[in-house]
């Protein structure tokens, strides 16, 4: 590894208050205040550096992942009020340390990134980044093995890298980010950082469409969907073919999935007809949701002003005038009724310029506008874009970024995802419950994560990783065995 290491334990001790836990604690690994992981960098020709953080994180500013106000809140409040009172429990260093020591599934995470049981360059050259309580990032971290990775979560041992620009990412999972903020124009239940089960449906729809396209169109098999901890979802595609894509291909793929939406004036770039099979299939997936989750639950055109939006999307004067008239005379119509009105009015012969076919197409466009996934495409386009790792703690909500099982997508409830504090409490509860019923030996066999609600998620993740490793091994059994043999012979 081309890193210059300069372990300077003492230096860390001088860090500010919030960091003080670091000096003694093997705390903060990925995420939370601590942070997240990232772009793999294999081979590192001094070239085209990874640029500054701003450019890499720019599009994250508006989602809560990193630099938003959320992670900073604890810090701000620290300054005027006593720590214990104001600091949300889940971000206290002690809690985080416990979480990463006792619950964080290092082993499967390592295998997931390593694509093999023995340490490979895939893992060793991977860049990890950590977020400090102050919002600062430690980037360009990499580890030779899972154990070192776990240990290095102890910041005293931190490596220092002098020439960050010498790194050029060469390989990374293909990632997608779907964030609820992008749905603000069309959701009525919440806005900003808030979510509820109603608007989570948008994420459900998006996951379905994107997942289907990735599997059927691009043939990817190892797609891991992860709850982002607050109000979105990430996808990690670990297929070899996906990992090796360069920026151009990532951009193409992202744009393939992104549909140019109409702007506020309802002017659309025009979706080509006949519909591309991908759009056509997506529409079929989305249609049922449109009736129930959009029209009924969101009711996006309830008020008169909201109803204007739909009128703007219909490019036919005669039709819109007639609709306007009808709606003026009967206020308080629901979106479902208004949607039905379009056809009714059109059949009554109020179409002036559009043909019936064009109306069908216009209605398709509207349905797409209200249901089609809104991806934060920039995240997917660059190899060097950092994305929060699975199983880390979201700094704003304390929720663990758990994987989502797409086989049972509807059942996933973001509001019931365990928070770090809940999990730690569950360990205690389990210990209490089994205080007498199990022997100490038996208890020792039970790992902490197995005592909590994290169990299901970790097991799902393990299963997923096992599938990935199996596939990965098929291709390179020969090489693998050589390496394994070599490693064995060195073992004592």
């Amino acid at each position, binding site marked *: 590894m081309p890193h210059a290491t300069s372990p300077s334990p003492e230096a860390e001790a001088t860090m500010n208050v919030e960091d003080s836990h670091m000096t003694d604690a093997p705390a903060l690994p990925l995420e939370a205040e601590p942070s997240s992981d990232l772009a793999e960098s294999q081979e590192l020709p001094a070239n085209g550096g990874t640029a500054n953080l701003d450019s890499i994180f720019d599009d994250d500013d508006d989602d809560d992942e990193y630099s938003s106000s959320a992670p900073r809140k604890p810090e701000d409040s620290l300054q005027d009020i006593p720590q214990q009172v104001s600091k949300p429990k889940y971000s206290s260093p002690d809690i985080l340390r416990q979480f990463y020591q006792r619950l964080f599934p290092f082993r499967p995470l390592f295998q997931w990134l390593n694509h093999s049981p023995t340490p490979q360059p895939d893992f060793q050259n991977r860049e990890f980044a950590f977020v400090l309580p102050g919002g600062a990032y430690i980037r360009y971290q990499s580890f030779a093995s899972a154990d070192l990775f776990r240990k290095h979560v102890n910041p005293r041992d931190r490596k220092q890298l002098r020439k960050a620009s010498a790194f050029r990412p060469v390989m990374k999972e293909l990632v997608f980010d779907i964030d609820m903020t992008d749905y603000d124009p069309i959701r009525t239940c919440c806005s900003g950082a808030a979510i509820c089960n109603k608007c989570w449906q948008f994420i459900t729809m998006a996951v379905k469409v994107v997942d289907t396209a990735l599997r059927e*169109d*691009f043939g*990817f098999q190892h797609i891991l969907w992860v709850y982002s901890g607050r109000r979105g979802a990430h996808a990690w595609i670990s297929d070899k073919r996906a990992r090796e894509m360069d920026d*151009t291909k990532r*951009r*193409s*793929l992202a744009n*393939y999935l992104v549909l140019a939406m109409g702007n506020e004036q309802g002017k659309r770039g025009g979706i080509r007809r006949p519909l*591309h099979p991908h759009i056509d299939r997506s529409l079929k997936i989305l249609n049922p949701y449109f009736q129930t989750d959009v029209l009924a639950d969101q009711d996006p055109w309830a008020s008169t002003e909201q109803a204007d939006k739909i009128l703007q999307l219909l490019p036919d004067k005669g039709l819109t005038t007639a609709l306007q008239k009808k709606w003026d005379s009967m206020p308080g119509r629901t979106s479902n009724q208004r949607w039905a009105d379009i056809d009714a009015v059109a059949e009554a012969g109020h179409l002036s310029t559009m043909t019936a076919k064009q109306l069908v197409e216009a209605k398709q466009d509207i349905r797409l506008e209200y249901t089609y996934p809104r991806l934060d495409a920039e995240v997917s386009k660059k190899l060097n874009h950092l994305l929060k790792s699975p199983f880390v703690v979201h700094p704003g909500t304390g929720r663990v970024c758990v994987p989502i099982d797409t086989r049972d997508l509807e059942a996933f409830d973001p509001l019931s995802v365990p928070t770090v504090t809940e999990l730690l409490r569950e360990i205690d509860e389990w210990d209490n419950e089994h205080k007498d019923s199990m022997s100490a030996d038996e208890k020792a066999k039970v790992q902490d994560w197995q005592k909590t609600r994290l169990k299901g998620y970790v097991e799902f993740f393990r299963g997923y990783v096992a599938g990935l490793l199996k596939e990965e091994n098929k291709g390179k059994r020969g090489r693998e065995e050589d390496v394994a043999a070599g490693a064995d012979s060195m073992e004592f």
Partner: protein
Amino acid sequence: MLAATSAPRIAPNKRTVLDARKRQFAKSTHGPEEYPHRLNFYVVPPSGDIALEQFEEWAIARLKVLAELESCQFRNRTPAETEEYMKPVLDKYMRLSSNASRSSDIEGERKRDHYSHWTLRLAFSSTADLRQRFARLEAQLFKLRMQSDDTRERQEFIKTLPMSWETLSEEEKATWLDQLKAATNVKRDEEESWFKVDWEKVPGLVERRQCLLKKGTAYVHVREQQTMVLNEFARQLETGLELSARFLPRMDEDNRLSPILHHLSQSFVAPDAGYTESSSIGDITIPTAAAIDGLAQHFPLCMQNLHRELRNNSHLKHFGRLQYTLFLKGIGLNLQECILFWRKSFKLIADDKFKSDYLYNIRHAYGDVGGDSNRRGKGYTPYSCQKLLTEPAPSAGQTHGCPYRTYSPDNLLTLLQAVGVTDRALLQGVREDVGKQRFHIACNRVFEHGHKGQLRKVKEEGLWAAGDLDTILHPNTYFKRSFLLKNLGKIKAGDLGVDGPESSSGGGREKMEE
């Protein structure tokens, strides 16, 4: 010699033999290249032996073609117009016959094409700017040739390319027909034929959703095939050029090639054109000192400007004199007449002073005096556009050089109006060209406008070979062509074939390179 790649391309048995005698008399270890197809991806550099002259001549011919291609682009010619314009140029400089044609020299043509490409690749790999320009023009040339290729031969060529595509079977086609049509937007009259590739090969089509995707395989309509070949060509060329650039420093030890390569890359500023005897009008009429005023209307702007300055001030500074004298020599004015011309023009100067200060320069320019009489030959050759465009800009009071380059756009337009170019659209075009530093294009634009009628006549009646109407790159060519066009009626058409520009730009060029 021309190889430039990271992997050694030379087989061990072909390594350089260091013993000079062995090398000189050894049999060539490698056979001549074979060119089964008209088109060439230029993947493998040539390994045969060619003469240094051929090395240069072939490259110059190719350069000429590329320059013409670029000028088409500068003049906003449509693809159809470009094709029409380029056809005679290509035939003249770089003919490439199809396999079907009975041409006797298919191998030779293709060899020239192959070698010249690699020569220019070396010449233009030195800077990013040149590389980009060269790659763009080569890609255009390739496109042009591919389009003009015989359909069947093109298909055969495409088949040989290492691009893993597979035509869709009828069965698959039937299964996916609706989706295929919807995805690739097939018009009613287009053929229903698709091929499969990995989607990574066609990211652009994926991005625009113009192909059908199934499990990572892209189903692409045949109409995209040519584009893909072109893109692949451009991509390979660009990487190849980068490689060449890295290997270029190793060539420095060969002092025979680097001057040629340097000269070639220089020629890309404005393609160089040598002066040829046939640019004079000595065979039609003997120009005299007194006739210059009359002939001045045929002069390009650079010379007209000098002539005006001379008439206004009765004097020209040294470099202006030199440029003008050489030009006059080029049009066929002999030394005696030239001395007479200058003597009369410098009417404010006394005889003594003229003799002491100016006469020698004029005789020197004609090769009448100075240096070793065995070496000076006929003195300097008349300056080409390239020379005028690359020499240091004139300082205050000097009037030599190319006005399109040295004048500010406003002053340039005033000057053009003063010499009778007043067409508004034309002036606008000149302003644009000059703004983009395409000085010789501006000059050609003015020429074409001034001889619109005659040019049309010549074209329609087929009086001149189309190659004689290529871009003007030498003031003397400008003059000769203008003179001939304006005197079309007076000179018998028959004469033109013999001594017209026919032999002027191509045939005589190489002589001038010495």
